[in-house]
C-alpha cells in the first residue's frame, strides 16, 4: 500500500454518474487533478471528451467553476480569465486550462504558445489520449507511429508523435511535469505543486482510452503502467529548466531496466497493423529520448 494514499482528499470533486466511458484514463486522472485543484480555481476547457465528462446542460458533474471555450482558444481563454480576475481584484484564484491533445498539440498550440510566451499565470494541463477521441478516434499529431485511427485506417500513422514537452520546454517555463493515472498520488502531488507556483505551468497526462486504443476497460491502469515500464511515457519534472525523473521513472532510471516497447504495443488493437520496421523505429525513438532525458538528469 502506498502509505501516502491517506493524504489525498477523500472528497470527490468529479462526481459519479458522469458521461466518461467505462475505464476512461482521463476520468481517473481528472479525479485526482480536481482533488488537488478544487480550492479557489476556475477551469476552462475546449471541445473534447472532457466537455462531455463535465456534462450536458443543465447539470454538471464537476464541482469546480468552469468556462467552456472553443476548440482553438483554451490558453487564450485562460489568459482572459487571468486578466479579468486581476482587473477585478480577484487575484487569489488559480486559472487552470484542461485540454486534450488535439486542443494542445494541434489546434490549440498557437494560443498556448502565446500565453506561455507572455508568462500568463496559469496551469495548462494536457490530457493526452493520443487522438481526437470526442469525434471518434481520428489521428492527431500526438498519435504515435504505427497507430490505426479512423483517419489512418489502413496504412497506420506514418509519423512519430510530436514532442510537445520539448516545445513547452523551449518556452522556459517555471514548471513542466508529466503524470500518469497509473500513479495517482504522483499526479495529485504534481498538481498541488503546480498550483503553488507562479507563471505558466504545463502538465501533461498520459490518458489511456479503452475504445480509442482498443483494449478492455479493466486494463487502463495496466496500460498506463506499461507505458512507463517501457519508457514510451516518462515521468519527470522540469523546474526552472532543471530536469529530474520522478516516481516510477526515477526507479527505472536508477536500475536501468526498461521493458521492450512491444510489451506495450501488443496489448492494444490500434497497433495490430504495425510493421516490424515501425516497431524498430519506435523502439529507437524511445531509446534515444530516454538517453536524452538521462543526460538532462545528469545536468
Amino acid at each position: 500500500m502506498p502509505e501516502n494514499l491517506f493524504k489525498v482528499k477523500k472528497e470527490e470533486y468529479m462526481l459519479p454518474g458522469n458521461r466518461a466511458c467505462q475505464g476512461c484514463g482521463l476520468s481517473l486522472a481528472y479525479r485526482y487533478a480536481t482533488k488537488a485543484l478544487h480550492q479557489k480555481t476556475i477551469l476552462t476547457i475546449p471541445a473534447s471528451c472532457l466537455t462531455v465528462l463535465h456534462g450536458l446542460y443543465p447539470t454538471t458533474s464537476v464541482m469546480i467553476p468552469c468556462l467552456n471555450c472553443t476548440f482553438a482558444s483554451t490558453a487564450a481563454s485562460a489568459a482572459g480569465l487571468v486578466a479579468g480576475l486581476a482587473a477585478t481584484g480577484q487575484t487569489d484564484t488559480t486559472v487552470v486550462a484542461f485540454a486534450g491533445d488535439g486542443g494542445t498539440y494541434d489546434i490549440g498550440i498557437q494560443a498556448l504558445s502565446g500565453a506561455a510566451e507572455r508568462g500568463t499565470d496559469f496551469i495548462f494541463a494536457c490530457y493526452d489520449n493520443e487522438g481526437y477521441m470526442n469525434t471518434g478516434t481520428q489521428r492527431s499529431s500526438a498519435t504515435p507511429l504505427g497507430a490505426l485511427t479512423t483517419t489512418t485506417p489502413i496504412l497506420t500513422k506514418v509519423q512519430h508523435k510530436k514532442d510537445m514537452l520539448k516545445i513547452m520546454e523551449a518556452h522556459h517555463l517555471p514548471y513542466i511535469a508529466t503524470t500518469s493515472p497509473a500513479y495517482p498520488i504522483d499526479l495529485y502531488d504534481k498538481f498541488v505543486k503546480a498550483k503553488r507556483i507562479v507563471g505558466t505551468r504545463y502538465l501533461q497526462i498520459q490518458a489511456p482510452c479503452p475504445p480509442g486504443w482498443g483494449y478492455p476497460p479493466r486494463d487502463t491502469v495496466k496500460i498506463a503502467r506499461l507505458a512507463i515500464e517501457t519508457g514510451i511515457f516518462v515521468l519527470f519534472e522540469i523546474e526552472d529548466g532543471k530536469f529530474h525523473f520522478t516516481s516510477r521513472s526515477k526507479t527505472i532510471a536508477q536500475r536501468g531496466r526498461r521493458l521492450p516497447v512491444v510489451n506495450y504495443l501488443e496489448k492494444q488493437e490500434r497497433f495490430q497493423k504495425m510493421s516490424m520496421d515501425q516497431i524498430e523505429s519506435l523502439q529507437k525513438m524511445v531509446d534515444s529520448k530516454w538517453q536524452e532525458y538521462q543526460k538532462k538528469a545528469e545536468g
Partner: protein
Amino acid sequence: MSKTIIMTGNTAAATAARLCRVQVIAAYPITPQTSVTETLSQYVESGELPAQYVRVESEHSAMTVCISASTVGARAFTSTSSHGLLYMHEQLHWAAGSRLPIVMCCVNRGVGAPWSIFNDQQDSIAQRDTGWIQLYCRNNQEIIDTVIQAYRIAEEVYAPVMVCYDGFVLSHTMMPVAVPQADMVDSYLSPYRPHTILSPDNVRNINPVMFAVLRKNSAGVLCDGYMEMRYKLQEALEKAREVIVEAGRKYSELTGRDYREMLWSYQDKDAEIILTGMGSIASEATVAVDMLREAGIKAGVVGIRVYRPFPRAEVQKALGKAKAIIVLEKDISYGYEGALCSDIKAALYGTAINAPLHNIVAGLGGRDVKASEICEAVKKSLAEMKGQESRFKTHWLNCRQ
C-alpha cells in the same frame, strides 16, 4: 464641459475606451485599426488607464480574452478590421451566445482575396448574423460618442456591440472632436455587473453541451434547450431597440449632440428621392443631395446608424413618402445584391410603400466615391426607374464592367 480636440477616428476610439474605464484590453494589429491598439498601449503603459492589456498572438485570442474577462466581471474592449474580424468569427458567435457586453470597434476594410487594405464594409456585414449589435458612425465625433453609448447598451441588453467606422476615411482623418469629460461618462455608465458571477463560491459550468430537448435540472425545473437560448438572444436584440434609443436620448441630453433616433436624416422633410446608406458613404450622399437639389431634384438622405437590430419601423416611416429609393452601400452579398438593400426591401414588404428602388454598390476596396458621381448615378437611376422593368436594379458605381 467637453474639450474639442482635433484627432483621427482611431484616436477617438481609443479615447472613448479610456473614458469608459475599460478594464481588460486585448488586441492585435491590423491596418487600418492598428493605431487604436497603439494608443491604448500608451494609455496603459503611462498609467493613464489602469487596465490589463493582453498583447495576444491573434484576433481569435483577442476576442477570447475579452470573452473570459467579461465573464468574470471585467469591462472588455478590443478593435480590429477585415481579416482580423473574419478570424474572430467563431468567437463573435461565442461572445453573443454567452451574452457578454463586449464592445469592439470594427474599422471597416475590404477582405481578400486578393489583399486590400482599403475601406469597404464587407468585413462587418459578413458578421451580420453573429448576434452582435452593429452601430455605424459617419464621423469621428460619432465614434467617440457611439463607443460610450455602446457600453451602456451592451451592459443593459447583455449583448456585445460592434462600433463600425470606415477605414482611412475616418480612422486616419483628423477632425475636431468634442471629448466628453470623464465624470460625465462616469455618470452615464454604471459599473459593469455580469449576469452571472463565475467564482469558486458559485460553481457553474458555463456554455456546456446543450441538446435540442429540454432537460430538468437537479431541482426538478425543466430548463431551456438550445433553441430557447437562441430565442432569448433574439428577444434581447429586439428589445435592444428601446435600449439604444433610450441610451441615445440620455446621451443627447448630456452632450447636446443628437442621438435620439436609430436613423439620422438630411433634407428629408420634403424629399421625394431618398438616398440611404451607412457610415461615410451616407455622409457623402448629403453632399450629393445638395447637388441634386441644385438641379431641381428634391432629394434627401436617411442614414442608418443602427444596422442590427434593424430599425424596421423607423425605416418604414422614413421612406414612407419616397417616390424613389437609392440604397448606397460598400458591400455585396454575392449572387444577390447589397445586404442593406435586401434588408430595406424586406422592411418595406407588405407596406403601402412601393417606390422603385435601386441599389448602388460603391467604393469596394477603397474605390473612390465622389459626391458628384453619386449625384450622376442617382440621376441615371431616376431615368431608368421610369421603365417598368428597371424599377429594381443593382448598379456598380465606378466599376469597369
